[in-house]
């Protein structure tokens, strides 16, 4: 008998499982199909060999295909427009005004396509500053969700047909004595207002109602009572040495944030100055403004009125004026300090209030009168035209519609179905209107109810003007032919009302050549005036003289109304995010992916609460809870947000859109229903709510930063003004390294430089950037500007969650922790115990922001580890990245101490998995043709806008001169509303960059590594009351 050796006991037993496995070469299933991207059910059909065959065939096919280059065509213009040279950008002055934000802008076009928006420096209002929303708005032109043409009841129709229909119906309604309403968001355009007046004359029974999602009508009411002017004043914060803000997010959301941020920063910069403003913030949510404050106090929304009254009382007592009813708040110390500072700085002090509450605004008016703020800072004689909505008129319209008294409604830009507190009431009311016409340029919840859709142009396709502030005009001009069959709302009105004007453009031009022309005397020909106004984009009539202010308000009744507010439950406060704002640009993926400046969360809103509150409710981040208040119940995830007031939750508005387009839909929930309408205004808060935890699975909140404190390290260097005045290097001591020769400056310990090899010289240019942490407010404008300029892809929530965001510049936000080394010693905590505690942000933290992009190290750790020399250094100090050389080892990213390198894990363009603007022909039109769209598997990072550097150098070379300082600028620096980022050439001793590096506050990030970055920071200085007590 033949011998048989078993391979193991299993073979002897010979059980079924063994027999099955014996025939398989591989014990485990090979994930070939997953690799090939097929579905799991076909798993058995492909073997490893097939996989190799496919691979081999694929490679052969690819190389064969590469042999035959496709025929590419070059199609020139038939008749080239004189002003266009392909490859050379054109800039046009225009205006951004979407009913919520305003900025005078410059639009960069390439081959007739607008691709970038920057601020117009000639504007006295925005002075060249832009916000993230304005930067991102260029994408709204190329939004697939836009209306492509007119329709009736969803059926595509022709303009002629629609016009004759609507014209006849409107005439019929008007003749029969019916009522027509034109419902718009705030229109800054004086010409449009004039036109609407003409429409109202032509069609009797027509009225114009303005609706803003975030309204200021409380302030208008208060100013009517206090000063007899139902206006919103303008503010000049550059004149304010002492600012106290009550729930007012003036750096990111309130009234004219871009303008305020620039003014505010003027008094926060310390270059060549020895003083800066002091800023107190009393607020419920941790806002961007609050996180920049020197002293911040958390106040529940229900206590806010009492805080205002108490502040008034304190100042009144110092001013020797009759105090209002006595109130006691838990914030007496903070309020006393604020009051004292304000009073001492009277004439240069101001109190701002963000609540849409007439009583509170009236108390604040009284304070500001006592402080003399109306003499310098607040200007009622040159009022702002922003936020024209009167909530009472909207409410009246709603009841009129509900009562069937309105026969026709023409909507433009207003979206009350989404943003009015009572959505169902609005829907029911609009349903009662027989003729509903929308002229909005994109679908929204309100337009969805319209029978006639008559889409307007995008603002980049339109003629318009704006008067954001009395006497300050700006023009908007089309920079591209309309992409779709759309028509400007104003032109539609001219047609429908049968006005005699040729079109809105002629109307606008005629008005400017008569009215605005008549306001000036410099230019003596109307045509020349029009041309220069169009070229400059702006026109000012000069400032009007201020008149003395007489406060006539009734402080006592206002105060007692405020003192009556009580809340026992959970208070809910609504706020605007820096990116999404009121939600009108919600379908913009750039803005959705812009991390919230505070929470760093993208693509969502959430119920934010303080850590202590979450602990007491037994909640952790991501838990889904039900929030009920005023009969409204909403489900949403919890976010632990240090800095939110106790027993209060904060929710961002602008989410939960249902009819805005694919990027916006399904994100977050609508918080507007928590707004309440009372005393004639809409309040962005609900008091006395309750929270219950649901059994739902935890919700994923994707954030770009999940570690919140600096753990005792000096990443953001910080000091206080009094210490800085004593020692300009306060908070910024030299970084020393222990060596065998004793302690040495970190910059002197060098592995590379030797007498033989002194390092690389930079004979021509040496580019760099300076970032002043004192002026950076953290607004995120630079992030979007960089994204637009450099074709940075949108990656979506899932990728963000696994830390694969692609932004080339990020803004790190750090909270302070209650723990420090001294405290740890006192409490007897060990090192580990201390560090664990340090990780926890304080319940009411101080906040710092730090923009971080590639630091362009001159001893770059990334360059030395690249196996293929894809990232190298230039003789101009730039850390270069050759995408097509990169093989994707990611060694560089691992060796980068700043974590600024981004890897293309996917092909983000033309990929259905990333269905954002780079996956649509229309959306791709926004791409910058001077920057490569990176493909999968390569590393990328900030290039310091090398395309702009090269362009600027070439312009200088062509003209035979050196480029001047400021002539070349990076996208981030250009967009910064506070000029915190400065770009320049170290080799130009005149440049701002060279000047600023002499400042003692200058430091390099992680200086102990001595990687010699080309980018330096300036220590943040706060202006807190010195601990010795005296201000």
């Amino acid at each position, binding site marked *: 008998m033949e011998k048989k050796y078993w391979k193991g006991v299993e073979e002897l037993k010979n059980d079924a499982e063994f027999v099955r496995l014996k025939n398989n070469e591989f014990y485990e299933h090979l994930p070939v199909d997953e690799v090939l991207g097929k579905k799991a059910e076909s798993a058995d059909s492909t073997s490893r060999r097939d996989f190799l065959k496919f691979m081999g065939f694929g490679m052969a096919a690819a*190389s064969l295909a*590469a*042999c035959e*280059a496709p*025929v*590419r*065509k*070059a*199609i*020139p*213009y*038939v*008749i*080239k427009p004189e002003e266009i*040279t*392909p*490859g*050379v950008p054109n800039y046009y002055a225009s205006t951004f005004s979407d009913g919520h934000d305003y900025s005078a802008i410059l639009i960069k076009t390439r081959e007739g396509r607008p691709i970038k928006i920057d601020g117009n420096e000639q504007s006295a209002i925005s002075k060249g500053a832009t916000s993230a929303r304005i930067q991102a708005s260029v994408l709204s032109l190329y939004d697939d969700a836009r209306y492509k043409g007119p329709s009736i009841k969803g059926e595509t129709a022709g303009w002629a047909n629609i016009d004759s229909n609507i014209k006849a119906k409107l005439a019929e309604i008007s003749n029969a004595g019916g009522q027509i309403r034109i419902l718009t968001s705030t229109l800054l355009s004086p010409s449009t207002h004039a036109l609407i007046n003409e429409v109202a004359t032509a069609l009797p029974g027509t009225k114009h109602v303005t609706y803003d999602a975030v309204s200021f009508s409380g302030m208008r009411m208060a100013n009517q009572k206090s000063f007899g002017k139902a206006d919103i004043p303008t503010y000049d914060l550059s004149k304010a040495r002492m600012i106290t803000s009550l729930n007012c997010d003036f750096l990111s959301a309130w009234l004219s944030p871009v303008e305020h941020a620039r003014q505010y920063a003027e008094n926060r910069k310390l270059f060549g100055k020895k003083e800066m403003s002091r800023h107190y913030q009393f607020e419920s949510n941790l806002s961007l403004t609050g996180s920049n404050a020197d002293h911040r106090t958390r106040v529940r929304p229900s206590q806010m009125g009492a805080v205002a009254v108490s502040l008034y009382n304190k100042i009144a007592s110092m001013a020797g004026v009759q105090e209002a009813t006595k109130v006691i708040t838990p914030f007496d110390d903070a309020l006393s300090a604020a009051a004292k500072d304000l009073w001492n700085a009277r004439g240069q002090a101001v109190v701002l209030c963000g609540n849409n509450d007439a009583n509170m605004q009236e108390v604040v008016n009284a304070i500001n009168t006592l402080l003399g703020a109306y003499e310098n800072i607040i200007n009622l004689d040159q009022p702002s035209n922003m936020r024209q909505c009167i909530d009472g008129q909207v409410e009246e319209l709603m009841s009129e519609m509900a009562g069937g008294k309105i026969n026709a409604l023409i909507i433009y830009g207003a979206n009350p179905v989404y943003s009015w507190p009572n959505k169902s009431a609005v829907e029911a009311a609009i349903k009662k209107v027989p003729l509903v016409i929308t002229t909005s340029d994109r679908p929204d919840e309100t337009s969805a109810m319209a029978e006639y859709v008559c889409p307007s142009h995008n603002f980049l396709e339109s003629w318009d003007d704006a008067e954001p502030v009395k006497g300050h005009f700006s023009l908007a001009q089309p920079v591209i032919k309309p992409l779709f069959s759309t028509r400007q709302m104003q032109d539609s009105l001219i047609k429908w009302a049968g006005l005699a004007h040729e079109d809105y453009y002629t109307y606008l031009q005629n008005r400017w050549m008569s009215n605005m022309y008549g306001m000036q005397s410099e230019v003596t020909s109307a045509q020349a005036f029009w041309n220069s106004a169009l070229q400059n984009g702006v026109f000012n009539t000069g400032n009007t003289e201020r008149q003395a202010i007489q406060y006539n308000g009734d402080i006592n009744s206002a105060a007692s109304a405020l003192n009556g507010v009580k809340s026992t439950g959970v208070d809910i406060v609504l706020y605007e995010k820096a990116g999404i704002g009121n939600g009108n640009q919600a379908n913009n993926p750039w803005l959705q992916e812009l991390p919230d400046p505070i929470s760093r969360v993208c693509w969502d809103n959430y119920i934010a609460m303080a850590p202590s509150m979450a602990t007491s409710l037994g909640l952790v981040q991501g838990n889904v809870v039900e929030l009920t208040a005023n009969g409204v119940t909403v489900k949403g995830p919890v976010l632990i947000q240090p800095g939110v007031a106790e027993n209060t939750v904060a929710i961002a508005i602008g989410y939960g859109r249902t009819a805005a387009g694919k990027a916006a839909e399904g994100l977050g929930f609508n918080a507007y229903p928590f707004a309440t309408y009372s005393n004639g205004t809409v309040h962005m808060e609900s008091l006395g709510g309750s929270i219950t935890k649901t059994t739902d699975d935890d919700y994923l909140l994707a954030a770009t930063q999940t570690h919140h404190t600096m753990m005792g390290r000096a990443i953001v260097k910080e000091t206080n003004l009094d210490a800085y005045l004593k020692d300009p290097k306060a908070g910024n001591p030299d970084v020393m390294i222990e060596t065998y020769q004793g302690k040495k400056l970190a910059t002197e310990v060098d592995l590379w430089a030797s007498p033989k090899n002194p390092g690389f*010289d930079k*004979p*021509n240019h040496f580019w760099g950037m300076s970032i002043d942490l004192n002026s950076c407010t953290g607004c995120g404008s630079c992030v979007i500007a960089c994204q637009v300029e450099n074709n940075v892809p949108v990656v979506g929530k899932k990728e963000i969650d696994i830390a694969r965001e692609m932004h080339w510049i990020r803004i790190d936000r750090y909270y302070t922790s209650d723990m420090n080394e001294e405290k740890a010693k006192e409490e007897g905590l060990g090192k580990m115990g201390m560090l664990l505690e340090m990780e926890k942000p304080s319940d009411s933290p101080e906040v710092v922001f730090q923009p971080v992009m590639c630091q362009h190290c001159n001893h770059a750790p990334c360059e030395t580890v690249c196996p293929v020399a*894809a990232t*190298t250094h*230039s*003789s*101009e100090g*730039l850390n*270069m*990245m*050759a*995408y*097509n*050389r990169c093989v994707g080892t990611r060694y560089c990213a691992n060796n980068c101490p700043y974590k600024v390198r981004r890897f293309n894990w996917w092909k983000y363009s033309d990929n259905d998995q990333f269905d954002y603007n780079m996956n649509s022909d229309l959306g791709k039109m926004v791409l910058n043709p*001077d*920057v*490569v*769209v990176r493909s999968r598997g390569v590393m990328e990072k900030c*290039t310091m806008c*090398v*395309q702009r550097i*090269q362009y600027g*150098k*070439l312009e*200088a*070379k*062509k003209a*035979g*001169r*050196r480029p001047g300082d400021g002539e070349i600028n990076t996208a981030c620096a250009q967009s910064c509303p506070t000029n915190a980022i400065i770009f320049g050439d170290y080799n130009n001793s005149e440049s701002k960059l060279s000047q600023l590096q002499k400042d003692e506050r200058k430091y390099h990030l992680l200086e102990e590594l001595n990687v010699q970055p080309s980018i330096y920071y300036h220590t943040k200085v706060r202006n807190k009351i010195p601990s010795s007590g005296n201000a």
Partner: protein
Amino acid sequence: MKGSMFATRTCQALLVLFTLLFLFPAANTQAQPDGEGLFKSQCAQCHSVGENKVIGPGLKNIHTRKNQEWLVKWIKNSQSLIKAGDEYAIKIYEEANKTVMPAFALSDEEIISILDYVKAEGEKAATTAVKGPVGAGETADAEPGFPWVLLIVILTLLIIFVALGKVKTSLERLVRSRQGLPELEPVTTTRATKNWVRSNKKLIAVLFVVGSVWGSIKGWDALAGIGISQDYAPEQPIKFSHKLHAGQNGISCVYCHSGALKSRHANIPSVNVCMNCHKYVQEGPVYGKTEIAKIYAALDYDPNTQQYGPDQKPVQWIRIHNLPDLAYFNHAQHYVVGKQECQTCHGPVQEMDVVKQFSPLTMGWCIECHRQTEVSMDGNGYYTELHEKLKEKYGEEARMTVEKIGGLECARCHY
């Protein structure tokens, strides 16, 4: 047979060439130089020598329309003829929408010389129109690069080789039969080859080595050439000849490719630029009106009304120079700042009827040029200070190449 055919062809081509050579001087002597100069300075703004209308009517065969005497009168003062009620004068005045032809202070001789010139031009156009294309077609065959001569030489050598082999075998057979030796077994070709291989092993080894080295070099070259489209010369939708425009007529490259002055793209001119000349030049020397008609078609242009129509279609040129997207190239940088001739990269375009890609456009080629080319720093304020610094570093006499100012760095072209 082949050889003789080739000879006939060459003869034909030469014949045509000679005919043309004789014809041109003949035409030149016939026309009065005076007349040509006068025509170009005085008349060409409004009239062509062909049939086409510019502002006034085309003048081809003008001598058949009216006699010389009348023509002289008309040219001297057309208005007086019209006023005098001359029937023909009034007719053409009406036809030209009452556009007045200005009076010319020319002598009778001068006018006659102009008319002679017009007459000669008309006759010349007729001859070239008939013979021109034929000549071009015939000569074209002889020109292109197929090595006919080499082929013939190789063929002849082969024939000789085979013939000599045959001769050798028959001679051997003859010798053997004479000497009474037995006849050789007939050797098969394979057998013979094998024998030859056995007796020439060293030669075979050498040949094999040489062959494989040659093969690998050729193979490597072929693979390295993938994606390189040097000499790519696609047929364009309009048979535009740079040889005619840039070469013979001496039009500056940047007259049409004006983008090179300020942009990264040199730009193919839009058709309205063509019309700057082709409003007047309505007929080409080679293709007559057919190719120029394509310009008119693109603009929907009517030569009679001289208006562009609404039905405009752009010309879809085939792009010859296709740099990949990952490489940034700027024409203005090289042409304006670097003061490079277009021909440095594009080759002698002024000699090309059909434009081809002259340079390989590979990165190696770019780099090589950046290593060799000196930067023109003189007189450019941008470089003044830099030049001093570089002199310090590299010495007074050093060549300041593009490489020395960082021209080999990645981010100069890749971003």
